[in-house]
């Protein structure tokens, strides 16, 4: 038996899943001030419907980190940057307590300027005086040479052992110093609060189901163990859209180009599946308006959902963006998008008579027929969604290209299907798909797809390796791996092998070894370095990842 719980902004959903069927599902209001209590409430109700000892995996999706960052409740953290030459320091306005240190590394990982011990000590003294106990350290090109970051950590260890340090190269191995620095900063900032939460959750779950695996859903649609999340709490942001996309995949199990529309109460999230695989945000997750290296699905959120209110304002119809309670058919006061669809399409959702009464009143106020008003609402909703979907297609098609073949074989998004998720989906998705001229997919489990998606998602993990045969070194990240390579006859398959090995090692460290065999190479580049007339060495960049998918025991959903 599997349990998936997705804590959303308004509601927390949970499912108990066994042998291809949802045994029980729960929808409960989220208490933002006590997420742990919310989770346990849902967990206990699910457990009451299952066999406690047979539940061997619980996956949680939580908004804790998103909330901490959005409300500025993360711990006060100092960011120590070593930008070296390049952009002016003024362009790194990442946080109030940013300190700059000497030290420069170039793109090959060579030291240009050494760090300055005295300067580090002065800065640390300031950090200490300010009473800051968390430090994030980020150097430009530190993923090619981590010695400066490590040097700073050593100094902190010697001088202020109480300070906790987070190094950027251990968080990400990709190019982009500002994103690495931001990710490192957010990681340092939320670590303590997250660990407190993890301690509580772990103890509570242990208490109820002692031998159960506990996983956390990440923004990239994969899970990590609760233990593994402790060093990287940032990865748990935006698990909501990831859960709904994984849920859509779990229900539809198809290799088509689809758009997943998760119709919530106040917002709708849109994701693309290309050949059945979720599209990743090429720039990483944007947290609090800042780009990060947290890998995430490409999600477009719009402020429009089933509960978006309908009202007349200055003689014209307003659809949303406010939510003034649930739809009238479900006991609300103000007519909503769901009510309009209920009437227009005779959906018989809740109390359809109540929907009709309020919609009629609104139509009278607008001086329109009921049908005309409902059509106007439907038109507004579908065209807003359609525009957002088209924009996502274009953005994907217009991603920069760095190779000739990428331009020659320019990708084109041909939509096959719309997959509807969420409570309001049955009302809106059929109309939207007609508008887009494609089929749609709705499943009886669509309303609980998020929690289901969380329950059956498997762990994901990625590793990037950079090999420089002229310097005879490699670096691998995240995790801060580095070491020597034998230069003779080093080939790209050696680099792939190395990446695989490091990924397996990282999986082992995070106790995720089961799926590392399935890892796929997503980046494979090699360059000859020609100096003078001859070959001076080769550079390899290899990226390998366990892609989002399902745990082995999940074989689909029975109808």
């Amino acid at each position, binding site marked *: 038996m599997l349990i998936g719980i997705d804590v959303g902004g308004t509601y927390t959903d949970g499912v108990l899943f066994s042998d291809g069927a949802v045994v029980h599902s729960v929808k409960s209001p989220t208490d933002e001030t006590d997420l742990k209590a919310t989770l346990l409430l849902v967990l206990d109700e699910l457990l009451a419907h299952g066999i406690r000892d047979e539940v061997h995996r619980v996956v949680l999706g939580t908004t804790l980190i998103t909330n901490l960052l959005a409300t500025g409740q993360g711990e006060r953290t100092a960011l120590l940057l070593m930008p070296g030459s390049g952009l002016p320091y003024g362009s790194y306005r990442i946080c109030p307590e940013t300190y700059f240190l000497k030290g420069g590394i170039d793109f090959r990982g060579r030291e240009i300027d050494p760090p300055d011990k005295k300067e580090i000590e002065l800065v640390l003294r300031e950090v200490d005086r300010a009473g800051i106990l968390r430090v994030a350290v980020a150097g430009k090109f530190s993923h090619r040479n981590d010695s400066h970051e490590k040097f700073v950590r050593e100094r902190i260890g010697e001088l202020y052992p109480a300070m906790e340090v987070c190094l950027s190269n251990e968080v990400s191995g990709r190019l982009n110093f500002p994103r690495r620095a931001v990710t490192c900063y957010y990681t340092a900032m939320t670590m303590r609060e997250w660990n407190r939460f993890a301690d509580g959750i772990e103890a509570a779950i242990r208490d109820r189901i002692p031998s159960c695996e506990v996983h956390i859903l990440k923004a990239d649609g994969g899970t990590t163990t609760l233990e593994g999340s402790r060093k990287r709490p940032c990865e748990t942001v935006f698990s909501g859209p990831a859960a709904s996309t994984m849920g859509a995949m779990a229900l539809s199990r198809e290799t088509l180009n689809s758009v997943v529309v998760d119709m919530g109460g106040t917002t709708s999230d849109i994701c693309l599946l290309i050949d059945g695989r979720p599209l990743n945000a090429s720039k990483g997750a944007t947290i609090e308006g800042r780009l990060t290296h947290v890998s995430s699905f490409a999600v477009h959120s719009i402020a429009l959902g089933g509960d978006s209110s309908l009202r007349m304002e200055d003689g014209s119809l307003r659809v949303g963006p406010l939510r003034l309670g649930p739809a009238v058919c479900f006991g609300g006061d103000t007519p909503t998008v769901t009510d309009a669809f209920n009437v227009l399409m005779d959906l018989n959702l809740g109390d359809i008579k109540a929907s009709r009464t309020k919609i009629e009143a609104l139509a009278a106020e607008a001086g329109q027929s009921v049908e005309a008003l409902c059509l106007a609402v439907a038109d507004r909703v579908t065209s807003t969604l359609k525009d957002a979907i088209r924009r996502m297609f274009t953005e994907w098609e217009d991603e920069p290209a*760095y190779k*000739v073949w990428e331009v020659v074989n320019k990708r084109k998004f041909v939509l096959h299907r719309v997959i509807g998720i969420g409570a309001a989906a049955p009302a809106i998705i059929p109309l939207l798909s007609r508008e887009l001229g494609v089929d749609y997919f709705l499943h009886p489990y669509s309303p609980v797809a998020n929690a289901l998606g969380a329950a059956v998602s498997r762990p994901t993990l990625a590793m990037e390796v950079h090999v420089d045969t002229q310097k005879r070194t490699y670096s691998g990240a995240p995790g801060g791996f580095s070491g020597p390579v034998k230069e003779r006859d080093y080939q790209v398959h050696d680099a792939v092998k190395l990446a695989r090995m490091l990924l397996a090692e990282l999986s082992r460290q995070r106790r995720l070894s089961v799926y590392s065999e399935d890892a796929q190479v997503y980046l494979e580049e090699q360059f000859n370095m*020609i100096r003078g007339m001859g070959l001076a060495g080769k550079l390899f960049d290899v990226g390998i990842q366990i892609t989002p998918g399902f745990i082995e025991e999940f074989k689909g959903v029975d109808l």
Partner: protein
Amino acid sequence: MKPTGVLFFPAFDWAISPTHPEREERLLYTRDQLFEEGIMDMDEISEYHPRLASFKEVSRTHFCVPSVDTRVTQAHLVSAGSALVMADAFMKGEVKNAFAIIRPPGHHAMTVSHGNRGFCDINNEAVMVEYLRQTYGVRRIAIVDTDVHHGDGTQEIFWHDPDVLFISFHQDGRTLYPGSGFDDELGGPLAFGTTINIPLAPRTTDTGIHYVLDNLVLPLLDEFKPEVVINSAGQDNHYSDPLSNMSFTAQGYAALTTRLKPDIAVLEGGYSVETALPYINMGIIMALAGIDYSNLREPDYDPARFKETADNMRYLRALVDQQLAVFRQREEVVEKNRRKGEEFASIKRSVFYDTDYLREEQREELRICPRCAGFRRITSAATQRTGQRYTVFCVSLPRACCESCAEEARDSYEEMKDRPAFDYVYLQDRILDEFRTFDTKAEVESLL
């Protein structure tokens, strides 16, 4: 404030040959530097997706022998197409200025293309100029070529075009490829003075080039009043470039860009792939976007390292004065040339393609028209790298030409179609935007 458009197309899967300076590795470290800096994420920058230039867009500028598809690789089409993407972004007002960081380069490619010259097959900036004219009706354009090599291809293409001001500074042709670009190369009889060359002594520094910029280039632009300023942004004036002997720095390039304020910059040469390109490309983007670049420097940068000599400054001052005077009397000279009453001005030239190692023999005639800048007829023959020899006849009709020139040019094309001496006869009709190729053996005409 509008962003600066950047199109980074490093062609990571294309090289002239594995060890050639124009190889996959060329923009690798630039990629690392730009992406590590995160400059593409900044609000000041907007990154663009490349596209392929169409055969027709290439044919507005070139006579590719025997045809565009057999002469040009897809890499070239993407490179030229990228320049066009930047042109669109600029003309549509999406960006305040733009930089196409692309390869392969193009400024040595001339009107007729039999192969690769100086790593170039087609001329990206020239293809862009005709695109700007055709699509947006732009007429007066200035191209400032800051590559260390003379932009001889661009010069040849616009030699007879009084609406394109071509200014090139470069290491002296006596000491560097392609051996041209002397101060007396000033444009054709009806476009005299709109080609300006500034040959520089080896080891000229930032100081020297900035002097030329401030005292010659900027005043010329001021007086010419172009609608669009294009920078052929070659980066091989750098002190570490392996193919040249100059002493320019990344700071120098950035400062040049700040003062020149090009609307669209297009990358040309630059072969110091590790010690110069990452820093210069970064510097140019920062300068275009108005980002402070004082913290940008090469690892071995030392501002005191290069000092301009008094001798060189004397030489530069004299050259600047001379070229300013030439430019200011250009209209007089053109009038004088018209009054000579010649029907055609003709020249013979021999063009060597160093990369492909072939020689083209060419005869060019310009109609000395009393009303317009005339049209061109070119006879060209070369044995291409494939061993195939082609003799072709080309008629080029500019957009800004009078009706009688247009008629006469079209007649020339029709007349030559019957001549068995030519393998192909081409008509570049920019007024109708039609590009004809007549295969005399097969007697088939194709139209783009």
